[in-house]
């Protein structure tokens, strides 16, 4: 049974405490990730000197190269200097390109961000609208269509839908450019034109998931006792939906969107590869195959940070938007 909250201030204090704990957890996890990334890189077979200088270079040359880049120091020292460098914004020198890693990563991140942003701008309204619509007409044809197609779309891998989309629009109909390539120097409308094809697989995958969450949340709200109260008060249906239902049904959906970042990142990797788009995913893949450790580690860490920031935002949003958590919990 609910008890009267005697002090709203305690509620707010506990929210701050929770947030601090959450940020602490994020930082700790970030640290763990950096350790994993670094040491995984060490386990990868192959000697950087040999990889860079080629199979015909002399052993002495290789060893001197290795010494130059410092891979013969104890692991812990290497790790600490790496982390130290990172904190100063220095991500090291790429083995493959012999240039600083940082500008490459930053540009790549920017490209990926463009693609991701476009995807989100399309998915969020579409997914929510689809889910709410399906819930309002639950059990009927429109619901089954949206639900089933959403489900189907969300489990077809991005590269599969990508191939189909490329063949239809890029090869057969030739109305959209493939491969996407670089956006440098293109006008905004032209950039958008190039981004349409790669965005489609991302949208398909995420739409299903978001629509499903929105639908489930809305159905739960529609079946609730407070929805009944609202209707029996004599409120018009549109007001009931807008004011009473959506507020409660979209709360879980909004937080889910932020947690989709993981899938979005994975999708970006695949899509960039397929469309030859110079995003951070593609950068990491090529770094992995050419054993360019600094690039690889920096890239993965960057993605890790993005992911953790996104989930942190998700948690914060949920806590802040939920009155039960914001204003103190009942006994």
């Amino acid at each position, binding site marked *: 049974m609910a008890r009267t909250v005697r002090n709203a201030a305690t509620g707010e204090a506990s929210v701050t405490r929770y947030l601090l704990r959450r940020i602490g957890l994020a930082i700790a996890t970030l640290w763990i990730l950096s350790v994993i990334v670094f040491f995984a890189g060490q386990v990868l077979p192959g000697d950087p000197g040999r990889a860079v200088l080629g199979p015909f270079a002399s052993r002495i040359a290789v060893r001197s190269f290795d010494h130059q880049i410092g891979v013969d120091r104890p692991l812990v020292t290497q790790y600490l200097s790496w982390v130290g460098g990172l904190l100063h914004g220095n991500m090291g020198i790429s083995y493959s390109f012999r240039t600083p890693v940082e500008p490459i990563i930053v540009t790549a991140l920017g490209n990926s961000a463009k693609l991701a942003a476009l995807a989100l701008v399309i998915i969020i309204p579409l997914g929510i609208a689809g889910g709410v619509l399906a819930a309002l007409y639950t059990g009927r044809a429109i619901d089954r269509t949206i639900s089933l197609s959403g489900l189907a779309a969300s489990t077809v891998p991005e590269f599969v839908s990508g191939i189909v989309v490329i063949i239809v629009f890029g090869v057969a109909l030739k109305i959209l450019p493939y491969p996407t390539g670089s956006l440098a120097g293109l006008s905004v409308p032209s950039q958008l034109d190039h981004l349409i094809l790669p965005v489609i697989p991302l949208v398909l995958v995420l739409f299903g998931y978001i629509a499903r969450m929105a639908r489930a949340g809305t159905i739960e709200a529609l079946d609730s006792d407070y929805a009944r*109260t609202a209707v029996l*008060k004599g*409120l018009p249906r549109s007001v009931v939906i807008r004011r009473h239902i959506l507020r409660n049904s979209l709360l879980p959906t909004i937080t889910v969107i932020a947690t989709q970042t993981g899938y979005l990142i994975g999708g970006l990797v695949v899509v960039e590869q397929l469309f030859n788009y110079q995003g951070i995913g593609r950068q990491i893949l090529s770094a992995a195959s050419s054993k360019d450790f600094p690039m690889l580690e920096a890239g993965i860490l960057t993605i890790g940070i993005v992911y953790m920031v996104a989930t942190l935002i998700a948690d914060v949003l949920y806590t802040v938007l939920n009155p039960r958590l914001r204003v103190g919990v009942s006994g």
Partner: protein
Amino acid sequence: MTSQETAAGEQEIPAGSEPTLRVANLDVTYRVRGQNRPAIRNVSFQIGGRESYGLVGESGSGKSTVALALTRYLPRNGLVTGGSVSIAGKDPLSMSGSALRDLRARTVSMVYQEPGRALNPSIRAGRQIAEVFEIAGLDRKTAADRAEDMLRKVQIPDPGQVMDRYPHQLSGGMAQRAIIAMALAAEPALLILDEPTTALDATVEAEVLDLVAGLRADMATSVLFISHNLAVIAQMCDRVGVLYAGELVEEGPASVVFDQPSHPYTVGLLRCIPRRGQRKDHGRLDAIPGFQPAPGQDITGCIYAERCALVIDECRTAPPPAFGIGPDHAARCYRHEEAAALPRSTPADASLPSPPDADDPIVTLRGLSTTYKNAGTELTALTGIDLTIMRGETLGLVGESGSGKTTLARALLGLVQPDPGSVLEFDGSPLPADLRRRRRDLLRAVQIVFQNPDSALNRRHTVRRLISRPLVRLAGLSGSRLAERLADLVRSVRLEQRHLSLRPGQLSGGLKQRVAIARAFGGGPRLVVCDEPTSALDVSVQAAILNLLADLQAKEQVTYLFISHDLGVVRYLSDRIAVLYLGRLMEVGPAETVFSGPHHPYTEALLSAVPSLDGQRRERIRLQGEIPSAATPPSGCVFHTRCPRKLSTGVCQTTEPPLAAVEPGHQMRCHIPIGELRRLQEIATLNPQ
């Protein structure tokens, strides 16, 4: 069925004036898995202006369906298949769109069973009430002011602050008041209350019921009160209709129907409830044999025929019409004149257990305290409990939410760890507080029957497995001896062999509870804790289970710790009673003494709060405020914040009284001497309200 006097006997509505609600031959059907299931059959009744009508029925009677049909909020598979409804002259069944909205906004309002869930958790309470005024066309500011007025009218303290609160910050009682405020804001012609107090504590329930009665007197609203609780209906309603399996079997003025029931079902129902202080030594409760008809079953003839002891051939061939018995009193029974003489289905004579030994304790608790840690705060559920349970007796444990009665039971069972320093003894030897450290003989000795059989029985196991398990684990039986004991046990709880292969989902509530009881008795326990064993069951089934518990006690010579919020049932079954409030014992004594007085002011309030079919014999005590939170108990006597008999010397606020013997065998925790209490409470009895 037209005009008649209200309970207060003041007003008479002239015959022929339009009733506020007229329901005529209403049929409602649900479509489940392709089959049609009639939920309401040919129900007709009327409610006049300013009249309060009670619709009483057990689960499955269709009473909530009536409310939903009236407001057109049946689920998608529910359909009104016949009959007509008229509310204040308008027909909701033919309305849609704005006309229906208008009806809901201005003519009909509803109050629901679970107040916490009926409010939108994301919108402040005040705003939700103001919405009603906004629909009526007021602007936001005026609507908010009027909403605050309504909160004041429903006696919510500090309405300005409550306006800004979210629903989860309101207690159950306050939330229900807010909903009542919301419902009455539009001054509707008809107010429907569907089990409005079932989820509330007794003292809170009394306040809410008083509030509704008071408001009704001010406004010209008619009330449709739906409940399974006959006592509440008797207290609140002018007239009553008894619903059985979707049909109205009897109708009439409340006092008449409950005093001279004329339908065998009503008679049976009333016999299931312990009345006028009935105790187990006076005789067994009568139960109603058989089951309600299966949903969707086709019935020719009287719907009650298969359970009726007065059944004749005519009953099975043609459904009986409504026979008039008195002005406004009718019953659908061919034999309504002999209804009162309905033969009992359970013999009245009781097999009595041997009277409990006054000085032979089986359980001793000393200084029992339990503390919960919940998200940083400490909650003391029990404080310093000193209690003895005598061998062979039934000790009734009474208290509202927060009293700690469930915690006490769980501590006894070893499911909850008491604080260090608590002493538990069973049969003279120490009782390990941790269940895992109890040896098998102790596990056998103390068992429990839980409140909700759906939760207490593993729905994936068969009945056979459920009952055999304790025989295997505790009694160590196997093979033919196991089979023998199993058959024995099944017989003693009056189940049948064919039930053994079923799963709980296929059994009715009463049958499930019997399985739970069989399981509790399987190991041959010496103490059985009964935690609200009948609260989740229908009234007609409760009696059978109570009888069973009483019989088993006589046969197996067990001791019961009987927990219940239903005081009538506690009085029926218990030899002694202990009253808990906020984790402390307030009173312990023989059942009769505790009930008739003199008793603790809290007990007094509790007794006066509970509605009774037998009318109020004492002054209504109104407790102020809410039950305090266990996290911040009041100083001194924890009851002082609400005690109507608080001493003016202020000692109640500063010092906690000890639990002391005020008479032989009777202990109380109160600063007021018992002589004084006796005097004050006798005066109150002489001036009943």
